[in-house]
C-alpha cells in the first residue's frame, strides 16, 4: 500500500509522483512544493516519470508559517 503524507492511499503500484500530487489537488507546476519518496528527494523534473513502488512512502511538503 502506498502511504501518502502519512495516510494509507488507494494509489496503485506504478503510479507516478505526478499522480500522487494530483490526489492532493496539486499540479506538477505547483509553486513551493517538494516531494520525498522513501526518504529521498524526487526532483521536480522526475515527477512525471518516477513510478511508486507498492509500499512507497510519499511525503509531499510545502511552505508553512514557522520559525
Amino acid at each position: 500500500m502506498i502511504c501518502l503524507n502519512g495516510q494509507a492511499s488507494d494509489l496503485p503500484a506504478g503510479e507516478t509522483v505526478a499522480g500522487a500530487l494530483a490526489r492532493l489537488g496539486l499540479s506538477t507546476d505547483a509553486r513551493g512544493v517538494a516531494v520525498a519518496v522513501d526518504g529521498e528527494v524526487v526532483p521536480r523534473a522526475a515527477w512525471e516519470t518516477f513510478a511508486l513502488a507498492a509500499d512507497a512512502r510519499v511525503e509531499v511538503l510545502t511552505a508553512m508559517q514557522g520559525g
Partner: protein
Amino acid sequence: MASPAPTQADTDPLTIAGCAMCSRLLLGTGGFPSLELMAEAIRASGSELVTVALRRVDPQARGSLIDVLADTGVRLLPNTAGCHTARDAVLTAKLAREAFATDWIKLEVIGDEDTLLPDAPELLRAAEELVDEGFTVLPYTTDDPVLARRLQDVGCAAVMPLGAPIGSGMGIRNPYNLALLRQAVRVPVVLDAGIGTASDAALAMELGCDAVMAASAISRAEDPVRMARAMRHAVEAGRLASTAGRIPRRLYATASTPDEGLAEFPT
C-alpha cells in the same frame, strides 16, 4: 528637490554569504493569526529575510503563504524546524532547496522537547554535510562561543545563537557569553530566539550582534504590526549605539556641566 540624507541602514548593510541587506532584522513567519497580518508586519518591520517551515501539504489550507510572501518581496530562509537528527535536517534542507529554489537554510536540530535547545553534536554534523552539499548554512545554536567557532570552521555563513529558549520571551539571559561569542567568530552573528520586546533586540545589537531574528515576539504580540515597527527601531538604534562608542561605566558621577563660572551667592 534634495534627496534625503542616507540613513544608517543605507550605508551599513548586513552581508551574509555575499548578499547585502539593508535591514538587520530577520522575521519568523510562525504564530501570526492571519496571512494578512503577517504581510503587514513584514512590511512594518522592514525585514528582507523571513523564515518558512516545510510541512505536509494540507489540501484544505486557505491562502498561499508562498504567494503572500512573494508579494512582500522578501527573500525566503527555509528552516529545518522540528528535526531532531542530522539525517532528518539534511533531508529537510534538500527538500526546501527543491521547493523554494534557494540554497540558504536556517539549520535547526532540536535536542530537547521542553527547552527546544539545539543538539550540538547533531547540529555540527548536519552543518558540515550541508556545507559540503553547497548550502548556505545559518545554524540555530546555543550561546557557546566554542561551538559557534566550530560551526564557522565547517563553513557556516553565519551563526544564530539563542538569547533564551524559543518562544520564551526571556530576553538575553547570558549577555557575557554572547559578547564572548561575538569575539570568537568572524561570520555574522544573528541573535535568534528569546527576544521578548524591543529592548532585548537593542541589547543584542549593542552587544555586537550583526542582526536579530524575531518570531513569536512579533507574531504573538497583541499588536504584531506595532511590535514589528518597535523591533525595527530597536535594531536600528542598537546598531547605531554599538558603532557609536558608548561611554564607560563608572561607579561615581562625572559632572556633565563644568563648575567654572558657577555663581557665588551671599550666605
